[in-house]
């Protein structure tokens, strides 16, 4: 039984009802110790069932083994998936999801990386191409599984590419923290995980050496929802030499955590950066729901501070709060916009001639 299935939550509810009925039935026949034991059991069952439902919504622990910390190892250094001859061809138009272990030399973080490879990656013509890349960042609490299970990112990417609204693009889904209950907001935390280095240096370097992807900034973009949306905008502004565009789904202007070096007030604060540091030539898609107090205030502040050479466009959902239902509506518009702002797939043999 999966940890994030509806049936698991239902089972929890059944257990609560069962213990409740037993307490009501046996109260008059058992001593104080028995009564206290049963009440404790009920409280624990209610708490556990609530926790299961929260976990189901956020995918913080997508599997029982993730909870126990005994996850099966994923291949560390698999050669390019497209070169594996024995693999069955994917369904027409369907991309493939592959998980690799990425040990970050610069950050020291060693985490699994889910990789979406578009259907075109496996076609004869696609084998001669380097593809643009989007890094998609998850919220907190959350894991890359939130993108996969709650937001169906694979289905949406397949759909947008099949409709021609997106160019074939490789999408990377990195973890932003080695500890599921530690919110890094994709920063290099003082004395803690170096998530920023992992996401902006280790993961791109791994992708460049293991996948057929473009290596220049004009073909690299970021996206994310909630905390991941802050990450996407903050990292775009901090690393305009590596990324050219970002799409923010309900993001904030500040990280909302203590980084440990006060940088949440300065270099890791988007509002501070946009008023104190020259703006880079990058593009942003900023989306929010009007009734999502914090994210709409933060997002509006960022849009108000945007001026050339930085450009920002907005996407507003009138109702829906800070929820998956909102982000499911934003996925198509955000990914379509990103693809229209990232450079195209190019032949591997093409010269590396850059802009003058």
């Amino acid at each position, binding site marked *: 039984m999966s940890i994030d299935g509806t049936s698991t939550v239902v089972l929890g509810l059944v257990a*609560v*009802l069962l213990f*409740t*009925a037993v*307490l*009501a*039935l046996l*109260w008059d026949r058992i001593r104080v110790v028995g009564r206290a034991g049963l009440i404790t059991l*009920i409280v624990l069952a*209610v708490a556990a069932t*609530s926790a299961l439902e929260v976990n189901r919504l956020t995918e913080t622990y997508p599997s029982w083994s993730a909870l126990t910390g005994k996850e099966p190892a994923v291949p560390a250094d698999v050669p390019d998936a497209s070169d594996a001859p024995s693999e069955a061809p994917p369904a027409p138009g369907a991309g493939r999801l592959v998980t690799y272990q990425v040990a970050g030399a610069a950050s020291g973080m060693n985490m699994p990386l889910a990789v979406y490879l578009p259907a075109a990656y496996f076609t004869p013509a696609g084998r001669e191409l380097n593809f643009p890349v989007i890094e998609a960042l998850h919220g907190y609490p959350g894991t890359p599984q939130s993108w996969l299970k709650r937001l169906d990112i694979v289905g949406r990417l397949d759909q*947008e590419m099949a*409709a*021609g*609204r997106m*160019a074939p693009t490789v999408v990377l889904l990195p973890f932003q923290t080695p500890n599921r209950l530690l919110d890094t907001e994709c920063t290099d935390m003082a004395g803690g995980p170096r998530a920023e280095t992992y996401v902006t240096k280790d993961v791109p370097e791994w992708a460049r050496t293991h996948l057929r992807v473009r290596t220049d900034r*004009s073909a690299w973009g970021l996206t994310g929802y909630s905390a991941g949306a802050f990450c996407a905008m903050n990292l775009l502004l901090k690393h305009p030499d590596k990324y050219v565009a970002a799409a923010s789904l309900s993001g904030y202007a500040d990280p909302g955590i203590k980084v440990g070096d006060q940088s949440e007030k300065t270099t890791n604060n988007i509002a501070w950066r946009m008023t104190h540091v020259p703006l880079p*030539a990058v593009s942003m898609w900023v*989306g929010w*729901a009007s*009734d*999502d*107090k*914090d994210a709409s205030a933060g997002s509006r502040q960022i849009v108000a501070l945007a001026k*050339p*050479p930085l*450009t920002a*466009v*907005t*996407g*507003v*959902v*009138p*109702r*829906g*709060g*800070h*929820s998956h*239902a*909102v982000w499911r*509506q*934003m996925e*198509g*518009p955000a990914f*379509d*916009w990103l*693809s*229209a*702002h*990232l*450079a*195209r*797939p*190019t032949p591997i043999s*093409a*010269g590396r*001639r*850059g*802009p*003058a």
Partner: protein
Amino acid sequence: MSLTGLPLILLTWVLAIVAVAATVRWWRLPGRRRVPVRVAGLVAIEVLVVAGVGLIVNRQDSFYPSWAALGGLHSVVTTSAASVGRLDGKLDNHAAVTWSPPQAAAWHLAAPPQLLAPPDYAEHADRRFPIIVMLTSAGAAHQSGGASPGAGASGRGGGASGGGAGEVGDPRPVAGVVVVVLRPTGATTGTALADLPAALGQDARVTDRLAILVDPAWMRVAKAWPGHPPVIAGHDATALAAAARELPAPLAAPERLPS
């Protein structure tokens, strides 16, 4: 009653306390109703306490600010219909087309702009293509016949008829890009050319994403182009390929949200 309002939170907690009191009060009800009443009371307490905690958390973080948000949403995503350009029919022929928009008067060019559609222009009728703007004097320099700039198009006696590739510095169609060949003069400015993508959007299926190929003489115009598009020196096939690399793929009309 608002999902995130204090009244609902208070009501929930008051009901929870009432449920506790009532369950205690009728805990020892005689007869067969004792167990069902106890179960009902306990379940009510459990539900109200969980709801009370959930409502407080939801109020703080506005996950679901309204009952409508909790119940599911009506999508506001739209997709605009595929568009057509007025010159689509001519552009499909893979030959250079002379382009004479009314805005061109302000551009002070030595000759009318030439358009080169990509080989896949007709095939992808639902897509819009990014633009490569070529700023060159090569029309005069490269032509063996020595014709003056603009003679090629007019010499063929046709407003929008095809011109040979030779008259525009030998550009060939580039996959996934509409090429616009401009021959600037001393009076041409980058700022005046800012409306080119919008003007071209009427006549061809293009986006506002563009790259500039430029001969050294016209670097001034390229550098002044609004929006800092990529600028690449040269006008040969290598330079064209390099410019195309900087641009997005041709794409169908995107999904959009209200802005």
